[in-house]
């Protein structure tokens, strides 16, 4: 069913364009109106599409809108088409709604920034690109959005570009993303090669139909596996770049150098979830290869745990949240990796609310603390920034998985789904269980580090900062607090749309899974006891984590934390340095590349191009010119005259008939043989010979033969005249010779 879906990304794009062209001269209010208005418009269209138009079209593949043909080359035809079904619709809602809230928040946060209009232009551009990513009906269109959000991420992380640290962070994000994008492209190429199409519904159909994607690539080698496996794997590599999983997560903590609203929107709620979205979108391909899914799930689970551990020792507010994001994304990937696509998307949804809320609280707190995010100097802020504290409290409880906040339901469905998944078959069922166990540890860790953050920042009675800073602590303006509250509400109540069906024997109460079912398949069925068991386990983990953190950090740094830090200082520092992974990459990858680049510069650029090609060709021309100059006399017309004379001479020489200097005459009695060849070889051209043996003007013999024979009737002296004609050039020469006959 067609619907005007193009408005959804088009409004933010238009907003971005207008702001980039005119924004700088406008008042702040106008800029906000345009930007927030664009995204709000987009939100309204998305709501309309999702709630009124989609239900009727859900079974027929959702709403779609074909803007035009992008390229048609041979058998490849890619349309610029958008499709809104339950999955993309849900994400559109998240992007536009959370995006709108963050626009409002930014009007307060960026109030004193001189580049106000540019910021909103980039925000709008980002939203537009993300919407294209989500709504794209074919992989290339999705890739446009994929690249677009990468670009906007770069622009926004390095927003305050005058500091080289910010610019470097932006570069790092873009380059790491790019590496992942290569994987995405290869996956795309594989899918096109083996299904002949890049259109997502067609690929899904081809995958479900089996066959095409199950052919073995690289048979006979160690890499033999079905096409679907390789395609899924490469696509997942793209996802690890965009969604910050091992090994390409290193850009996300650095990306905290950007303004906090950017971190909230891009690195919490939307862009980083693109990878999860992509896997869910391509679920048909993934379902064909349990192997690839196992990789996805394991990477996700490991990342979740790894990032959680790093989060234990970070001292920057936003860095803790960054690692928390990486960890939660790991949860999402573990969810989709265990064929629990609905659960992964559910966690994506709840995470958008509580993580955005957490980040915006961070911005609020940093605003209060005069721009510093150092939690070692915070504390006791609970009374000083009450609204922020309230929102943070709600979001904190949500992310820890305290019942009945949203995170509780979503995390639980992932963990339960991991244990109960059947995708790996009988022999490898342990993978699911292993993933589940790791996730549980990660959940424990999540509760711990988030609680540590809460206690160190908000609890306690006094702030550890200097007096100067303490004097300036104030609650944020309404523009910033308003969106915070909305997000907190979402974080608190959002979980109820995804009530697990098994719990109440009413699967239809799981609104989210119900809606997503036409796209992602039915919700995983788990018995009531399993559900309750996992819920209890989740609660235990959550409370355990909070309790442990309280022990260490309740009200400030307490004895156990100091003792631990003293007992294992090297370990603490290792964790604080994020396990020195960045340094490892630098050593293994970046330094060799830099050395290679220097070598190439020296050999190719300086020697080959500068010396050999440029200076060399100039020197060559110089030498040749010197030689040529020796022949010149200076008078141009003389050259031309010589040329003409020379040409005439050559033409003359070439066209005169080939005649001997002297006729060869052989006399025998009364007859005579005349040979008119030049030398002993025949002429190289066809010539006409006419022999006049008695010089009376009437040739006796004419023809192409160079020799003639004649018998004279009487002895005497005759003059033989031979005329040679070149029929092509029209030239003739004549020779004569006296001959005596006896």
């Amino acid at each position, binding site marked *: 069913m067609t619907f005007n879906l193009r408005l959804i990304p088009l409004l933010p794009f238009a907003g971005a364009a207008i702001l980039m062209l005119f924004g700088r001269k406008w008042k702040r209010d106008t800029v906000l109106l345009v930007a927030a208005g664009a995204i709000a418009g987009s939100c309204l269209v998305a709501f309309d599409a999702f709630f009124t138009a989609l239900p009727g079209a859900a079974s027929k593949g959702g709403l779609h809108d074909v803007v035009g043909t992008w390229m048609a080359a041979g058998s490849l035809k890619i349309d610029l088409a958008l499709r809104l079904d339950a999955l993309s619709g849900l994400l559109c809602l998240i992007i536009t709604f959370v995006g709108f809230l963050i626009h409002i928040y930014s009007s307060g946060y960026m109030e004193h920034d001189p580049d106000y209009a540019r910021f909103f232009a980039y925000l709008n551009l980002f939203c537009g690109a993300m919407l294209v990513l989500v709504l794209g009906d074919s992989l290339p269109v999705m890739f446009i959005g994929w690249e677009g959000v990468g670009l906007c991420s770069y622009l926004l992380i390095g927003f305050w570009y005058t500091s080289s640290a910010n610019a470097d962070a932006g570069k790092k994000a873009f380059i790491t993303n790019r590496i992942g994008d290569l994987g995405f492209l290869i996956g795309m190429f594989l899918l096109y090669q083996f299904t002949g199409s890049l259109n997502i519904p067609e690929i899904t159909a081809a995958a479900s139909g089996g066959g095409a994607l199950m052919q073995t690539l690289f048979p006979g080698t160690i890499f033999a596996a079905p096409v679907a496996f390789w395609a899924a794997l490469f696509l997942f590599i793209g996802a690890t770049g965009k969604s910050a999983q091992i090994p390409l997560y290193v850009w996300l903590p650095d990306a905290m150098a950007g303004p906090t609203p950017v971190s909230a929107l891009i690195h919490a709620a939307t862009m980083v979830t693109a990878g999860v979205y992509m896997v869910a979108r391509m679920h048909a391909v993934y379902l064909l290869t349990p192997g690839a899914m196992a990789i996805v799930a394991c990477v996700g689970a490991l990342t979740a745990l790894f990032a959680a551990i790093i989060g234990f020792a970070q001292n920057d507010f936003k860095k803790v949240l960054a690692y928390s994001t990486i960890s939660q994304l790991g949860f999402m990937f573990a969810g989709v990796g265990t064929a629990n696509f609905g659960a992964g998307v559910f966690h994506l949804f709840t995470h958008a609310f509580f993580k955005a809320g957490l980040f915006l609280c961070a911005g609020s707190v940093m605003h209060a603390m005069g721009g510093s995010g150092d939690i070692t100097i915070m504390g006791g802020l609970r009374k000083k920034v009450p609204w922020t504290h309230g929102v943070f409290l709600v979001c904190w409880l949500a992310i820890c998985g305290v019942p009945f906040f949203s995170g509780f339901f979503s995390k639980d469905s992932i963990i339960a789904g991991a244990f109960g998944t059947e995708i790996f078959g009988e022999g490898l069922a342990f993978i699911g269980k292993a993933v589940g166990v790791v996730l549980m540890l990660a959940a424990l860790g999540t509760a711990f580090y988030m609680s540590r953050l809460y206690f160190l920042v908000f609890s306690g009675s006094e702030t550890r900062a200097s007096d100067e800073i303490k004097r300036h602590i104030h609650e944020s303006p309404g523009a910033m607090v308003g969106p915070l509250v909305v997000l907190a509400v979402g974080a608190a109540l959002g979980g109820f749309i995804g009530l697990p069906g098994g719990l109440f024997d009413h699967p239809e109460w799981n609104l989210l899974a119900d809606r997503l079912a036409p796209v992602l398949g039915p919700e995983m069925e788990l018995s009531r006891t399993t559900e309750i068991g996992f819920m209890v386990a989740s609660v235990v983990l959550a409370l355990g984590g909070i309790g442990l953190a309280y022990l260490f950090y309740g009200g400030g740094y307490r004895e156990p934390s100091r003792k631990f830090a003293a007992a294992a200082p090297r370990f603490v520092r290792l964790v604080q340095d994020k396990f020195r992974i960045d340094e490892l990459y630098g050593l293994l990858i970046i330094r060799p590349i830099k050395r290679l680049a*220097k070598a190439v510069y020296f050999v190719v650029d300086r020697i080959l191009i500068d010396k050999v090609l440029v200076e060399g060709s100039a020197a060559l021309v110089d030498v040749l010119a010197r030689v040529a100059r020796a022949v010149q006399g200076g008078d141009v*017309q003389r050259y031309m*005259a010589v040329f003409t004379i020379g040409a*005439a001479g050559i033409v003359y020489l070439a066209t005169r008939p080939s005649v001997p200097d002297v006729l060869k005459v052989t006399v025998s009695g009364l007859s005579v043989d005349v040979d008119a060849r030049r030398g002993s070889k025949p002429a190289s051209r066809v010539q006409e010979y006419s022999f006049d043996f008695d010089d009376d003007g009437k040739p006796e013999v004419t023809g192409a033969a160079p020799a003639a024979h004649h018998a004279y009737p009487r002895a005497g002296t005759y003059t033989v005249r031979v005329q040679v004609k070149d*029929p092509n*050039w*029209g030239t003739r020469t004549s020779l004569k010779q006296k001959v005596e006959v006896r």
Partner: protein
Amino acid sequence: MNAGGATVVDQVVFWVLAVLTTFFAGFTITRRNPVTAVMSLVATFFCLAGIYASLSAHFLAVIQVLVYAGAIMVLFIFVIMILNREEVAPFSMRPLRLLGVLGGIYLLAKLVDVVAVGLPEAAPGVAPDGFGTVAAIGEVLFRDFLFPFEAISVLLLVAIVGGVVVSRSHQKEVAAVEAADYRHQIQELAHHDYPGEPEAPAEGHH
């Protein structure tokens, strides 16, 4: 006479245009005043364009007028405006050059011989459909002669650069040489210190 299937109109057109072309061409090389010479050259080109059209080379006829008569001759006129000097003794009848002209006449005679003898009845038939139109030439140009086409654009680039370089005033020439020297100096300084940071150049601004 009806040579090679041409109609009377064709013949009249050809002969009129041929005579006019020759006449104007002769005019061009014998005028003292360069402006008159240019004008008669333009007339020559117009007549030639007519001949091209009669040869079904429609595209080239238009190009002849546009580029030759329109652009190149305008260029000539601009230059004449700068350099207008009438010659006192326009013709330079030095012996070598006269010899050259004679050689040219000999060439002409020889070549007339050839064509008269060799190809007397070579009359073109009916032109294929679309012969000489833009579309047809475009197809051949961009399919078979794509590389020469690109090479010609390089040639035009060379002409532009050459024109700019040649027509530099003495001052600009000197300034250009100095600027090149300066850049060379800076490069040398920079390379000496590689791989570290390059030194600040000797002079203030660049």
